[in-house]
């Protein structure tokens, strides 16, 4: 039972960043701009956010501990996330500028960002000695400072209390909120309707008097914000040392978005399926029965990816990307 609970909390733990990033990408693609720069943006979010919570960006404060003692762990964490969001927005602006204003190929500018950000993060860390000791290429992350050991009352609820309201990071709740908001914004608001229109048929939207460029900028910047936040949440969740990497989660998230057929709820489902499979194969020992089969590790590790492909084969027949995604909008075109 204990192990089963641990399994679930891990799945939640890894699914949340995947979902947030995938939903971010969704905003961009639904507006008609393909954004494979999520990996790079996540890295920036994590990098800047962590610099902030480590006090590197604030004169007078020069350690995470000092900072949290000053205003408390959760506030620091949330502030850090806001900084991460801002950073994410700024970087995604590069992508927006190139692919919306300058009619650049959207793959190219995104690739530039994915190439730039990890390098820049490492470069700055080492050149400006941002880590613990000079010359190191890692930023320390005092993750335990930001853990909420239990939410009063709620944590008393059987099972769910333990699952959702004990030793969680604030990011978990942010993620949940993000899911709900995304769904509402996409399907229940004026902006959502216009966003989807721009991704499907910008010329129709244009004729209806909608400012395509504005909507697309918003779409991309939102994706940047969410990627920035989830990069921060993700990294603080899993390491005590940040070395300018989010271990491919940015790309996995894009896979999840496609897997979820560009629809918020399906994306959430896809993310949980995928995270569930990953956690199962990495943590086969959660399930003694399977564990004792002693299947070669390599095989087990492959399974989540194989299964995903199989599921895709079964579900892709009528999967369709937003029609105008990736296309440059040009009033003249007809």
């Amino acid at each position, binding site marked *: 039972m*204990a*192990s089963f609970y*641990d*399994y679930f909390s*891990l799945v939640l733990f*890894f699914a949340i960043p995947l979902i947030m990033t995938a939903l971010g990408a969704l905003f961009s693609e639904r507006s008609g701009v393909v954004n494979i720069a999520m990996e790079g943006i996540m890295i920036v979010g994590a990098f800047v956010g962590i610099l902030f919570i480590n006090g590197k960006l604030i004169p007078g404060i020069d350690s995470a501990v000092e900072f949290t003692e000053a205003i408390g762990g959760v506030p620091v964490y949330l502030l850090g996330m806001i900084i991460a969001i801002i950073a994410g927005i700024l970087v995604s602006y590069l992508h927006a500028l190139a692919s919306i204003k300058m009619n650049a190929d959207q793959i190219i500018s995104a690739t530039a960002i994915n190439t730039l950000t990890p390098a820049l993060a490492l470069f700055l860390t080492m050149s400006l000695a941002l*880590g613990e000791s000079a*010359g*190191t*290429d*890692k930023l320390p992350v005092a*993750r*335990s400072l930001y853990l909420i050991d239990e939410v009063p009352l709620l944590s008393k609820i059987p099972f769910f209390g333990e699952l959702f309201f*004990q*030793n969680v990071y604030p990011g978990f709740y942010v993620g949940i909120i993000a899911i709900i908001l995304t769904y509402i914004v996409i399907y229940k608001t004026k902006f959502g309707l216009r966003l989807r229109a721009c991704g499907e048929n910008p010329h129709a939207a244009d004729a209806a008097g909608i400012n395509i460029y504005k909507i697309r900028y918003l779409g991309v910047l939102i994706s940047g914000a969410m990627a920035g936040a989830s990069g921060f949440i993700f990294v603080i969740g*899993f*390491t*005590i*040392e940040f*070395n300018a*990497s989010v*271990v491919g989660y940015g790309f996995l998230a894009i896979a999840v978005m496609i897997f979820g057929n560009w629809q918020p709820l399906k994306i959430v489902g896809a993310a949980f399926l995928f995270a569930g499979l*990953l*956690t199962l194969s*990495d*943590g*086969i*020992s*959660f399930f*003694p029965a399977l*564990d*004792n089969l*002693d299947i070669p*590790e390599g095989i087990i590790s492959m399974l989540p990816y194989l299964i995903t492909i199989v599921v895709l084969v079964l579900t892709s027949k009528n999967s369709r990307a937003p029609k105008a995604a990736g296309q440059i909008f040009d009033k003249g075109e007809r």
Partner: protein
Amino acid sequence: NGDSGAEEKDWNIVMITDVGTITDKSFNQGTWEGVQQFAEDNDIPAMYFRPNDGTQAEYEAAIDLVVENGANVVVTPGFLFETAIYNKQFEYPDVRFILIDGEPHTPDYSTYETADNTTNILFQEEQAGFLAGYAAVADGFTKLGFMGGMEVPAVQRFGIGYVAGAFYAANELDFSITFPANRYTYLGDFDASPAHITAATGWYSSGTQIIFAAAGGAGQSVMAAAEAETGFDAKVIGVDVDQAADSETVISSAMKRLAVAVQQELTAIIIDGEGNGGTTLVKGADEDAIGLPLGDSFKWDTFTEAEYETVYALIEDGSIVVPATEDELETFLEAHAGNPDVADLVEATMSEAE
């Protein structure tokens, strides 16, 4: 010119890193700390150089480059340098090479030769692993696990020693322990990652009480898992250096004093003007180059420093010869550990070529 006493020669130390970063909590980091310390103490210029790629061609190119740039002491951590050093030690006779964890040889292993300007340093990691395993069992842990980083010789030796120590203690103190083969693994890299957290969490929540993480940065993930474990207080044994500071859950660390060894050799070469060129230094208990941290970092519950000292002594005077390979482990367990039936655990410690 050199012969008029070493001091007048102006020295220039360059370390060339192995694959992995300078902060790998392993070879690179340990070596660099040693070089850095020495350089500061004697203010001699020192730097490290990261090759673009982990290939022999790239390693040799790097050596050429730094030597051409004035380096006359080249420190290379990791056995991947063996073939590169083999070539370059002859090409640059006036450059001193320090090769850690390896001995120069040709790619086909047909000839091993260490020139007079090359010093090899090997560690008996198995001894450190043994002490860790012994301590864990003696302290009353009964469900053990081992997570190595990549399966490289040094890591293998840590693991093999750990297994040997655990069953040796179990036999001597006649405790019964469980250490199944699927609790002995090599993670495949030295970096923290969600996958490693998951794996470790899985082990803990299925009952493993203590994990020896000989995995550089990946150890951080094991600690993360231990911290998150709510059911009981899960423990981690750190590696290479005293990792007590990294996490509450680190009960001890299987140390090898890499930095010290590097400093010693640099001193020998530069200060004493001699050095142990042409030889291979094997660093173990006898030179106090390995061991567990004492004092505050000695967090064992029932296992005492006194007991530790006795075991240490046995290894030091050679009355316990700790196994370093799968085969040695097998025979060791038969001879000194009451021959537990753990064939597949032993199997798991080393993938072997035909």
